[in-house]
């Protein structure tokens, strides 16, 4: 997957988790949690969706890597390069 595809994937997963998600004006370098009002349960869902779709195992201590859209892409790029 390209960086853009990964970005779209993350947004699509968030949209799927949260029917109220609003992406207008989303800052890719600021925490998703604050901008979208997500909590740790929602982050768990992002992790679980990635696992369901791509068999990706993300250990709990690496959840902080998913903090912003850019950090998600950086973190997932090597893991999803063949996906």
């Amino acid at each position, binding site marked *: 997957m390209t960086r853009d595809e990964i970005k779209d994937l993350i947004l699509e997963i968030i949209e799927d*988790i949260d*029917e*109220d998600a609003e992406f207008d004006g989303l800052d890719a370098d600021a925490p998703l949690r604050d901008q979208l009002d*997500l*909590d740790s349960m929602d982050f768990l*869902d992002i992790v*679980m969706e990635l*696992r369901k779709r791509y068999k990706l195992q993300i250990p709990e201590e690496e959840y902080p890597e998913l903090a912003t859209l850019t950090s998600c892409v950086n973190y997932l790029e090597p893991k999803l390069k063949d996906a």
Partner: protein
Amino acid sequence: MADYQLIIIGGCLSGLAAGIRAARFGQNILILEQHSLPGGLNSWYFRHGHLLETGLHAMTNFAPVGDKRAPLNRLFRQLKLSRKRFVTREQFGSEIIFPDHRLRFSNDLSLLVQEIAREFPASGQGFLRLVKEMETYDPFAPAPWRSAREYLSERLADPLLENMLLLPLMVYGNAEEQDMDLGQFAIMFRALFLEGFFRPEETIREFLGLLIDQFREFGGEIRFKTEVAEIVHDQSRVQGLRLQGGEFLTADRVLSTVGLPGTAALTDWPLEQKRYTGRMSFVETISLLPESRRHDLSRDRTILFYSHSNSWQYQRPEELIDPSWGVICFPENFQGIKAKKTFQLRVTNAANYDQWRQLDSGAYKKEKERCFKESTEMVAKIVGNYAQDVVYQDSFTPLTIERFTGKGAGAVYGSPIKIKDGRTPWENLFIAGTDQGYLGIVGAMLSGVTIVNQHLLG
């Protein structure tokens, strides 16, 4: 490989919520329910062409669409159910009625604040401080038991006001007698006073249908009329479940919603039964009245919490029931619910399980009627006489609750000691629902979700 990745005992609110969560991300999830209907304590039945709900006075924790942090909306996200399409009907307003004081409250906290300032001016400031503390209190952070009564008395310094506030919070969610753990107090304070009452537009049947559809949509399987007879295990692990009738199903993990005494009976868990069996149980009476007989309170109140004595105590009565205090609910009194030819009046009174247990079947019937009369007289002092207008009436006792849900001694709120992390002596057997610590409809569902998130997704 085991027959199932996860088997859930109980097709009740916690079991269904856990099932949806587990099936969303896993495979091969089975729910076993002993009855022909789902819902456990909160189910329904038909009499005289009426669908009657067995629990549902109101759901707690009201939150408008869009408030993402609110427990109700988090719950919907976790279950991947659309909150937008779920129509909620808010309460008209409720009232706490004691001999010399009355306090109204609604889903807008300012009403209760005003009422307290008027009735108990000396405690007004203290109540505001309490609200501030409750808004930020984290009831889920591990903490030792702390007396809610002491906490209240430090802030309000008025035993009568303390009792008035405790009555609704205790009767809707306290397994202990007399006092309440501060954490549980905080959960209930938020659920009732900060967030408030609502009900689904339709009945509990449609709500449970929504949950079952979602569970099946994610590939889950549910079997009704299937009673678990034994949880088969060795020293450290559960292998599977033996069903009534002999069938044996293997499972990687098992989640039980049948409470601690119930789960102990299915294993050979040497729990000290007495400590884990709650003493608070209730008799609930449903009366159907012609719409034309509505007046005053039955028109514009949703739930009345009453006590005919100022020195009210939350405890198991000595007698079959204690009608001197209780809950009166008008389950149609929610905004936007259409009136029918009849309306319901439901009354809940504390009851003594052991006393009911001792009756033979003839006496049981007779006592049920006598208790209905006694309760009706006490309730009439508040809402006016209605006994002569009743077109249909039914009541259930602690024995009914025990029979239909497997809750030992009919203890609606389960064990006074909760197992918050949901663990048992067996590494792959977990507890959710009432005895894990969250109570009520929304609470039981959150419990199912939380335990799956903590232990059963990996």
